[in-house]
């Protein structure tokens, strides 16, 4: 299976590429070649770092190409900032719009005695209808490192508790996102990536 990973120069892609290749995917990377997005069979938008970095997606025309690909039914997975980008925006960079596939906005964890960023292994409450998280049971953990998060809505595929409940994963048809890092979440993370690679139309 062929996967197109979008590089928008926000941190390091090595771990994501390594995990996808480990699962047998044929991986190609684009940082601006729209033809690769237009011909993609599957799209992955990773991302660590600042929401502002997603401005590069607009500048290169990738945002429009992704929107069109999603419209054609191409499976899309956003990881970390890549998931947050599926929403209208983030208070981390209020002037930078997201894709707005989901109308809500991402916000910072509220100030309290607990540490922000949320770093480490936390559990998932998976909604039974999720295809991306099929087979992920209670007692399984995934690795998070983030300060901003998406709200829990009808499209939330898994909820995690830290300070307050937030969307650990979102899923609507072929559009999926995970706030955690499946490429760094051991066997559970690889199972989730495998589900994404196996995702076939509705």
């Amino acid at each position, binding site marked *: 299976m062929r996967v197109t990973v979008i590089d928008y120069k926000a941190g390091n892609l090595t771990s994501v590429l*390594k995990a996808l290749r480990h699962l047998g995917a044929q991986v190609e990377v684009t940082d601006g070649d729209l033809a690769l997005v237009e011909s993609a069979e599957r799209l992955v938008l990773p991302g660590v770092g600042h929401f502002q970095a997603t401005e590069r997606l607009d500048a290169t025309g990738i945002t429009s190409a992704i929107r069109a690909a999603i419209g054609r039914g191409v499976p899309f997975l956003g990881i970390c900032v890549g998931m947050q980008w599926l929403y209208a925006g983030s208070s981390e960079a209020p002037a930078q719009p997201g894709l707005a596939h989901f109308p809500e906005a991402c916000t910072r964890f509220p100030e309290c005695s607990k540490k922000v960023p949320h*770093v480490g*292994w936390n559990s998932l409450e998976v909604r039974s209808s999720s295809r991306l998280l099929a087979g992920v049971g209670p007692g399984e953990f995934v690795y998070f490192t983030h300060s901003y998060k998406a709200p829990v809505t009808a499209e939330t595929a898994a909820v995690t508790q830290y300070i307050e409940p937030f969307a650990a994963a979102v899923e609507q048809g072929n559009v999926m996102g995970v706030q955690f890092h499946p490429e760094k979440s051991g*066997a559970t993370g690889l199972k989730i990536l495998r589900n994404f690679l196996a995702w076939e139309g509705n």
Partner: protein
Amino acid sequence: MLTKRIIACLDVHAGRVVKGVQFVDLVDAGDPATQAARHAREGADEIVLLDITATHERRQTLLETVRRTARELFVPFCVGGGIRSAQDAGQVFDAGADKVSINSAALADPGLIDAIGRSFGAQAVVVAIDARRDPHAADPVRDAQVFVQGGRKPAGRRVVEWAREAEARGAGEILLTSMDSDGTRAGFDCQLTAAVSEAVGIPVIASGGAGTVAHFTDVFARGKADAALAASIFHFGVSSARALKEELAQAGVPVRLPC
């Protein structure tokens, strides 16, 4: 629930895992890639590889070790030793590390923390601090001093202040090693760990002194650590991450048990 992390640390010298007491008397403890894979399989939440005798000439050896170790590792992987520039950090990330740990280079040039954070994100920058209590100070813990050169030379900075500055400059985590406890297996310095953990809003990884399961429960409770580093406790088959975590779970510490 967010769990407390157990981090396996591999001290590496010339491509081999070694263990010493207070940074001297090094003993061979195996191949880094094999050791890292075993720790991850047995439930370690993260792997730290520290090149304890990093030199410019050995740079390629380190990168090759990182590449080999990262290949089949799907948990967070942090690498430290000899990283003196954002460019050095970039090479280590390209080789497969998720985070870099910087220590003396950050003391020499604190702007290095900002530079790596800007290019790779705060989550990728761990500032390692080698600390000793100051027995002559009115408050030996609050006035604990930062040391460099494997704990031999004072850096002229107070630990708590330096941790705060590292956070302000964009460090994602603090790796705090008590040089007084390191290698003794007599327990973490919980007072020092708590002083640093309460002073910063980023996670603190406690290091130095792990010998028993009770030492870990202690550093999570009294020491307010978010994670704890273990090296010698895992070597030579003394214990495994799985055994340690099962005991911690029984003691009421939230941990991720391996599937």
